[in-house]
């Protein structure tokens, strides 16, 4: 096998895995096509997996355990919120810079926090009508 640089090899391997699409490729097939032995091959595959470029899924083929490799899309640079924050933006704790330090017995204590108390009193008036003391 001709000497090629690690980077070159990784690129070729990644290209092959990408071309295999959603069915993926068995890692033993990949090694064979690249002309690598299992030691070099598994190291290469682990490097790619570590970089998050491929996924490895354990499968049994002809009674032997091996891995099927699939390409993973690089992480997106788009902001996609899957957590709904619209309804919590209103709660003062959510936008409080001291949330991380807040706890019972600490300097910031949710049980006696005046900001939380004021919000609850306002909320009580809004939701339940102004029939209390306040």
């Amino acid at each position, binding site marked *: 096998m001709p000497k090629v640089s690690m980077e070159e090899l990784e690129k070729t391997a990644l290209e092959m895995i990408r071309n295999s699409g959603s069915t993926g490729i068995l890692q033993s097939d990949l090694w064979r096509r690249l002309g690598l032995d299992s030691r070099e091959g598994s190291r290469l595959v682990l490097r790619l997996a570590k970089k998050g470029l491929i996924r490895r899924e354990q499968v049994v083929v002809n009674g032997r355990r091996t891995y099927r490799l699939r390409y993973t899309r690089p992480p997106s640079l788009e*902001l996609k919120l899957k957590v709904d924050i619209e309804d919590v933006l209103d709660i003062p*704790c959510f936008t409080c*810079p001291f949330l*991380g330090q807040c706890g019972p017995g600490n300097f910031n204590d949710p049980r006696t926090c005046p900001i939380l108390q004021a919000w*609850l009193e306002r909320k009580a008036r809004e939701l339940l009508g102004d029939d209390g*003391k306040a």
Partner: protein
Amino acid sequence: MSQADSELLERFVRAVASMVRLDSDHAATILRKLLSEKNGKGLSDEELEELTNIRQGEIRRILRLLYELRLASYRRGKHPETGATRYYWKLNLHTINNVLLSRKKSVLRNLELKLEYEENNQFYYCPLDGSRYTFDEAYEYDFQCPKCGSILEEDDRSEIKEVLRLVISRLRESIARDEERLARQ
């Protein structure tokens, strides 16, 4: 979707910035610049200064806030010409959902603690200045307001507890939905 997402995130950053007395418009501007940075290299504080005309000191305070909120992180790099050390900042787009979810869980824990406290204590309040004391505190002050001397009255409002129960149950449901969405990705 993404437009609405960045607006929501901006509202969040604005709110936290104003709590620590940072200019919320400036904080929103920095956030937008980081969001629009698409080549993945990040922006240094100097580049941000050029892009926004905000003073570097303030930019660094805003970046530090974003870092503390775990929304942004930096990498050490070198200035392409002078070779001086530069810090390049970018938003943690792949962890942002988990960061926000864990924040919601902290809020839930706070509200549960507050409800437990309200349920297990009897409160007194000053009719003049509205300050609030537990039974033990009020007893110590002889049921007189330590600030103005007026007689403390019993605070028997159940509305606070009702509001807390309502907000807690909504938040629990919302967190369950978020977790489902995150698991599906």
